[in-house]
């Protein structure tokens, strides 16, 4: 099966957004009146049946965004401004019980970051499924178990293993079980937070293959959060790159690959090893994202950016449409100059020959 089976989809984009972030700020209160402004002015849209990739380094705020969507922020976290709309309804002020009743699992389910630690170690997998059924449906115990059986089949696990405990499963099998749970109530949106990070490369490929096949068969939208830009390029339709609590660039994956306009998006691509070109020098991004004690009124990448100018520190950047394309936006005041400024970095190594071409 070809990896980019869903590639053509973005041409004939279905336009109803399933999730919209509008200027969302998220902050955490820490001890002694200190705040951490984890997410600032985040704006992006996920369309129905889209696979949306959110990429960034650790601590950039991407997991906070995932938590905020399903009301899973820690007690000290708060959406301090902006709106989050799910299928048109504002959900940023929902209470815990509203989330339980209207959002969680029936509408949005989650494939959490570390599958190895996410399954309750003292419950059989079947018990965990029965529990989901108990709180969200009127399925009987037997029906819930039957449902889990079907789903085990879907994700490629043996049905006979549904009464096992999580520790009897290998890492890859636990990840499959987690995917089965996420499908349990046929949600419209799945949030996958680093779904394959802990897995070996062959297993990662199998799991991603499964995740991809859901798109056609289950009509699902996906928010895939990862640090691995290659996973997004291969599996997603649209994407956003985050840095230091700000969205740097958003658009569909082909545009972001062909015409990246935010310096971070450009450098990140060049820093990423590509097995096809082992001779290419990897780009290095110097420095670190700043600690955000206050809402930043500057571009958080400015300190690390080779092309930053004084104006970069004079206000958080507004989004710029790239070449008039409303769907492709870069939060950089020099976005339209990048063509010349970063010319060296924009030549694709593809001009050199991939060494993989000989593999049959």
């Amino acid at each position, binding site marked *: 099966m070809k990896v980019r089976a869903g590639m053509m989809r973005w041409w004939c984009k279905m336009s109803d957004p399933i999730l919209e972030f509008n200027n969302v700020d998220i902050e955490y209160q820490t*001890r002694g009146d200190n705040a951490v402004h984890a997410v600032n002015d985040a704006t992006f849209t996920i369309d129905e049946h889209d696979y949306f990739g959110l990429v960034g380094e650790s601590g950039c705020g991407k997991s906070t965004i995932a938590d905020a969507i*399903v009301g*899973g922020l820690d007690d000290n976290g708060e959406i301090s401004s902006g709106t989050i709309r799910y299928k048109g309804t504002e959900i940023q002020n929902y209470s*815990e*019980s509203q*989330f*339980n009743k209207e959002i*969680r*699992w029936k509408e949005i*389910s*989650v494939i*959490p*970051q*570390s599958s190895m*630690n*996410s*399954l*309750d*170690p*003292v419950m*059989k997998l079947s018990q965990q499924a029965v*529990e*989901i059924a108990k*709180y*969200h449906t009127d399925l009987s115990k037997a029906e819930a178990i039957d449902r889990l059986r079907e789903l085990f089949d879907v994700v490629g696990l043996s049905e006979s293993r549904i009464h*096992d*405990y999580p*520790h*009897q*499963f*290998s890492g890859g*099998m636990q990840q499959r079980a987690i995917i089965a*749970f996420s499908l349990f109530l046929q949600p419209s949106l799945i949030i996958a937070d680093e779904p394959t990070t802990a897995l070996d490369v062959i297993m990662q490929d199998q799991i991603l293959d499964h995740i991809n096949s859901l798109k056609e068969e289950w009509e699902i939208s996906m928010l895939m959060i990862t640090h691995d830009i290659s996973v997004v390029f291969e599996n997603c339709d649209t994407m956003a790159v985050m840095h230091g609590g700000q969205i740097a660039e958003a658009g569909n994956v082909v545009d972001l690959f062909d015409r990246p306009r935010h310096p971070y998006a450009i450098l990140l691509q060049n820093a990423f090893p590509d097995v096809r070109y082992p001779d290419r020098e990897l780009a290095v991004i110097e420095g670190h994202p700043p600690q955000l004690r206050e809402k930043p009124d500057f571009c958080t990448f400015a300190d690390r950016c080779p092309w930053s100018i004084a104006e970069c520190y004079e206000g958080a950047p507004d989004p710029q449409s790239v070449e008039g394309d409303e769907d492709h936006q870069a939060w950089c005041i020099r976005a339209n100059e990048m063509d010349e400024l970063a010319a060296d970095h924009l030549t694709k190594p593809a001009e050199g020959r991939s060494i993989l071409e000989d593999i049959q």
Partner: protein
Amino acid sequence: MSRLRYFAHRTAITVALIFLVASSLFVFFRLMPGDYSSLLVQQGMNADQIARLEAKWGLNAPLHEQYVRYITNLLTADAGQSFRHNAPVWDLVRPRIINSAILVFPAITATYIIGSLVGTVIGRYRGGLFEKSSIITVSVFHSIPDFFLGILLIAAFSQTINIFPTSGMLSTETAVMIGGEPFWHRFFLKEFWMHYALPFATITLYFMQYPALIMRNSVVEVSNQEFLHYHRLKGLPRPALLRKLMRHASLPVVTLYPISLASSISGLVLIEIVFNWPGIGRLLVDSVLARDFPVIQFVFLVAAVWVILGNFLVDLLYGVIDPRVSVGNDNNE
């Protein structure tokens, strides 16, 4: 390993351990300075009496025969004869075990239930005045030696405000009055429970530190576990989440419970003396003072079995609470 096999395995180990301890006791008492019969004979017996005693106890037989006899006797609950009371040791020890158990089991159990709840609350509301004051309180109670804590309680509640009697299990009059009744009769008397209150409170306050502080740490740790977050995202309501939190957090506390039960036996000696409670702790002290070796030997054995059974209980509980312990990893077929 199946769960059944796990339990069988644990049981076998427990039985073997008890046997080992009984054997070691036999050896230790034979290793003591002087020969064993001279330990028994200190009260100015003449040679004839000693000879008769030795014959009666089989102390002339070779060691291995004595050992076999010792073990067979133990298996038939025949622990020999108390020298001081001239009564079978078992008859002497049995009511004392019951008296001690009736004090320690409920007290430690209550300690753990209350302590876990306190610990959960401290763990949930960290950083406040409540956390600090609770930690200081339980630590202070544990820092005071247990017998001294008992004395303080007596001073406060028996001497100053005089609600509870100072010592003993029953007043002398009552003891005489119900002398003919079976021993459990006393548990229906209010007077017994009035005597019971202070030693009970001493043990509870003294041991509270373990479950409270360990539960607190455990609650903090489990709160940060991924699976709880996942449960929350799956849409479990708060009470259900709290139940899960407590079940997971209680694992280390459960481990400690039988250990506290077992170790409380050492504290028991002093508490029973302070409150003049007729349990095995006091029996041990009395017997040591009177050099009543058959009783001492048997009380040691009881104490060891007490500790071993306590640990056996941990293993069983763990097997039930955490399947990772009893149900091994058998994937990869």
